[in-house]
């Protein structure tokens, strides 16, 4: 099937403003969703689901969260790990306080807590801009990390200092979380939540609110003169971003790791998510998926893929090598394609549109 828009005329503004104005894109989307919801659960084994698919989706969601703040609203944050942790601990407290409540609702609710924390730490952004702000978001990161370690109430005074995902059922008796939840169940739940939030995020960024974020990002004084209130625009970006990160953090514990220590939400995680944003592309939602896939799967490939093709470099060296390769890749991406994989994807589509001719 050719990727062409020829013959697809738009006669209404509504059609022109659809998320996927091209028929081929819509077909592609349904194909991917079908693959993700039906084919993957049927075909993939537990390793692929547990080690690749589930964390990939959760991290992609966190990447969307950070991208909204950094890519759309232009406020660089280095505290993503902290906000994810806030969601995770909020969800843990909620589900241990209300064991009967539906865990999915609690996960969606726990984002509200991280959003509130995000607003508090977003307040300085009203007076502080750019790099200074980036440094102050580290305050959130370190403060929250300290809270997770020192405030016993948050982890119900466990001796281990870690939080575990307790077993929770849906009304139908299907086990969703805890050690007895099957990989497929967790995968489907994660996929559904991630897909839903992605759609909502897309709606936000293409509407009035998303536009106000981009206005602040591109030229804050002009934005103000068009009637955007920086207070509301910036804090709403912090709130939405931290909400999404919080939900991702809660799922990180309840559907992926099962049990985490505070160190899981360290600055390393913040950087990892930031890299996903950069590699995927600032200000692109689809790029978040590309970035998350790339950064998450690269080390797995190095660890498992290289020995398969006969290169063995030792487990410890893989970690170091990954760190080096990621570092170099980040720099290369910034030099060659600051808009990341999303941009390459777009260029590829443009090329395909006019194929077999070199240009239209």
């Amino acid at each position, binding site marked *: 099937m050719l990727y062409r828009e020829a013959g697809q005329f738009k006669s209404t503004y509504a059609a022109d403003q659809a998320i996927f104005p091209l028929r081929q894109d819509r077909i592609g989307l349904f194909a991917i969703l079908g693959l993700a919801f039906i084919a993957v659960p049927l075909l993939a084994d537990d390793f692929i689901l547990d080690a690749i698919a589930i964390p990939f989706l959760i991290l992609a969601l966190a990447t969307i969260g950070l991208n909204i703040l950094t890519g759309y609203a232009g406020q660089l944050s280095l505290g993503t790990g902290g906000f994810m942790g806030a969601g995770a601990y909020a969800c843990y407290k909620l589900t241990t306080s209300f064991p009967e409540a539906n865990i999915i609702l609690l996960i969606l609710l726990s984002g509200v807590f991280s959003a509130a924390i995000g607003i508090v730490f977003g307040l300085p952004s009203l007076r502080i801009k750019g790099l200074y702000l980036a440094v102050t978001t580290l305050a959130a990161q*370190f403060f929250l990390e*300290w809270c997770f370690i020192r405030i016993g109430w948050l982890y119900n005074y466990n001796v281990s200092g870690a939080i575990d995902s307790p077993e929770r059922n849906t009304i139908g008796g299907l086990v969703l979380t805890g050690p007895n939840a099957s990989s497929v169940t967790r995968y489907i739940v994660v996929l559904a939540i991630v897909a839903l939030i992605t759609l909502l995020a897309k709606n936000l960024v293409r509407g009035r609110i998303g536009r106000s974020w981009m206005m602040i990002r591109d030229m804050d004084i002009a934005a103000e003169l068009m009637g955007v209130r920086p207070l509301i625009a910036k804090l709403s970006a912090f709130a939405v971003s931290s909400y999404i990160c919080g939900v991702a953090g809660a799922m990180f514990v309840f559907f992926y790791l099962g049990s985490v220590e505070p160190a899981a939400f360290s600055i390393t995680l913040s950087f990892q998510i930031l890299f996903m944003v950069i590699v995927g592309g600032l200000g692109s939602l689809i790029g978040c998926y590309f970035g998350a896939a790339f950064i998450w799967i690269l080390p797995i490939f190095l660890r498992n893929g290289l020995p398969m093709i006969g290169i063995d470099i030792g487990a410890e060296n893989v970690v170091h090598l990954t760190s080096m390769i990621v570092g170099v890749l980040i*720099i290369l991406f910034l030099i060659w394609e600051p808009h990341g994989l999303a941009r390459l994807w777009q260029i590829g589509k443009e090329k395909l549109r006019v194929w077999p001719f070199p240009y239209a």
Partner: protein
Amino acid sequence: MSLLYDILVAPFVQMADAPDFLAQVLWEGFVSGILYALIALGFVLIFKASGVFNFAQGIMVVFAALTLVGLYQKGVPALLALVLTIAVMGLLALAVERFIMRPLVNQPHVILLMATIGLTYFLVGLGELVFGGEPKQMITTELGLPTGSTEIPFGERGVVILQHIDIAAAVIAILMVAGLGLFFNRTRIGRALRAVADDHQAALSVGISLNQIWAIVWFAAGIVALATGIMWGARSDVSFALEIIALRALPVLILGGFTSVPGAIVGGLIVGIGEKLGEIYWGPLLGGGIESWLAYMIALVFLLFRPQGLFGERIIERV
């Protein structure tokens, strides 16, 4: 009420009760403040000349120390290892100039910041791959640095213990700042550097080579990093765990402003001393460990009232 007492009164009573202990705390804070100031100084050098927020400055400290110790462990004599490490920092500066600065010139600040985060990851990986990740002992005596300590009587029956290495650190830091000050103000390269800091294009148009200047400032920052690394390594082990301490130097920059050398020094001392006092006298109230974020909170609150930092000028936005 008792909480208010604990916060507002008790710490000061404690201080007055044991003045020698207080003096000890202040001294320790002073020394770590100097080391923070040194990290911040390397950072300010680079930011002034190129507008790059060098997130990797902290890692360069660890990387330099690790290279020095690693070379020594591989059988290279201490002083030769020191020379070789300086050479490595020089190579690093050239590489950074060629592969990061040159292609990314004129990009927004945030892009450059992210590039240095990439550099951070690269250096961590490289250092551990070559020299291994386990903590190492700094070769203090081999480099001819003092290791003993002196006890100074203080007050009626108290004593304050001064580690010689700490005194050496303070002296070296002061010499370094003085040296850099002379370099900036008295030499031709220093003048060129200030010209570049003011306006890239104007500097280019009078025949200053940006690439050369960048290589020089990154090298200078590398030397500062090495000195910091030796001092810090002597106080604890050398490993990438030091990275977290480097992160703690960032609030210094917020306090002092990204472009001010005096700001880096004063900011470093404020953070170093404030952090120690807070941790010792107020920390127990909160369960300890507040060192990790106290400096950030101080800096954050400070910024809300004075967004331009201690020594920065107020910026008027023009449209």
